[in-house]
């Protein structure tokens, strides 16, 4: 794998309302040599047997790349967590229960991403090995990319958010949430640097308030 990616590029089209999904995605580019055979993604190209198979092994060795769509998930009313009415942890406290559903936004975005990726490979003169799947099948299950954020989202009003823009809980004055929970949507970028920047900002404000004797 290489640390390269193709950044989102359709800002103008998005602003002009030409896309059938909101926000954007990027591609992670993968590629390595990989020995032929056992477990190799070239398996679909290495066909038959004999002299031509040896030719295939030489021809396709190191000749593959992969493009993975990483898109922004838009928050929706079907994805949330709540206190579980029945299950409790060992301290007798209710655990969280999660609800999860993709919406058409994600499916349309994935469909766009897949179509474009296939076109890129074909333009490069390549052959697409991945079977064509509907977006509902092609999308990874929620949480697969291990970049879960949100649930204590920040906002400008207590009625649609848990904290203010400094991660300060609306309901508890001296509680500051300084982690991925305050994200308002799951942007397709890796979250850690933003989590840290927001935590820094929250800590600065907290220190300032303490200095002023507010808490």
């Amino acid at each position, binding site marked *: 794998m290489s640390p390269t990616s193709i950044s989102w590029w359709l800002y103008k089209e998005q602003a002009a309302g030409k896309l059938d999904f909101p926000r954007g995605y990027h591609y992670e580019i993968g590629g390595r*040599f990989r*020995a*032929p*055979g*056992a*477990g*190799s*993604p070239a*398996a*679909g190209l*290495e*066909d*038959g*047997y*004999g*002299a031509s*198979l*040896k030719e295939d*092994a*030489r021809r396709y*060795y190191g000749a593959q790349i*992969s493009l993975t769509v990483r898109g922004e998930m838009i928050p929706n009313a079907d994805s949330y967590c709540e206190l579980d009415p029945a299950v409790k942890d060992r301290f007798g406290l209710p655990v969280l229960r999660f609800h999860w559903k993709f919406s058409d936004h994600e499916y349309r975005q994935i469909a766009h991403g897949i179509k474009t990726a296939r076109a890129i490979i074909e333009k490069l003169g390549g052959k697409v*090995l*991945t*079977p064509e799947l509907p977006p509902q099948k092609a999308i990874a299950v929620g949480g697969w990319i291990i970049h879960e954020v949100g649930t204590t989202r920040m906002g400008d009003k207590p009625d649609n958010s848990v904290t203010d823009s400094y991660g300060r809980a609306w309901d508890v004055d001296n509680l500051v949430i300084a982690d991925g929970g305050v994200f308002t949507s799951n942007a397709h970028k890796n979250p850690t640097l933003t989590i840290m920047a927001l935590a820094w900002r929250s800590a600065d404000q907290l220190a300032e308030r303490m200095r002023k004797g507010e808490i």
Partner: protein
Amino acid sequence: MSISRRATLAWVAGAVAVGALASPWLLDHANTPADPHAPPNWPKLDLPPVTARGYGSDPNLVEPSVPWPLTMTPAQRAQAKFLAGIILPADDHSPSAADLPIDAFIDEWISAPYPQQQEDRTLILEGLAWLDIESKARFGGDFAHATPAQRAALFDDIAWQGRIKPGLEKPAHFFDRLRSLVMGGYYSLPEGMKDIGYLGNAPATQWPGPPDEAIAQLNAALSGLGLPPQKT
């Protein structure tokens, strides 16, 4: 570079298993369904289960060893060797797979106590038995004693995607898996690595920078965008 067969094997099995777990998409490329319909003469072998220990969670990677015993019979090993030679024959670049210990690789693979290897074991051993059953029915003798033309006729029914003879999907699945294993073993040996030009990790004492052609191509693209060129 000369890594002992045993060491290479230990390394390959580990790398492949980890790769498969870490990147499930690798498995998406299987071209045959997991359990395609078997022909009526497909044998069901009653194999004693492999109960050996695996590597465990902290194997010695400096002096790798394989803790499980091999389970193939000498006849199965001979058959695997023979088939390996047909799948990857000698050419100007590299020797026949029959002249390298590919049968040992397959034996070690399918004797391993892990679920994927155990699935492979059933498929491979039943497939080897099926080849002889089918040969006898078609040509009156074992596969190894059939003529090259007879063998080719049989292989051509199961070896090529999109040309699999209807009803022989399971044997084709077996062949696909056998081919993967033969290739996996072959191209992890020094002879196979040399054939495809695998260099491995080589220390670089200096970085010569990108080649002139690459710079020229980049600069053409940059000038098309009205941007200043990169210096070599």
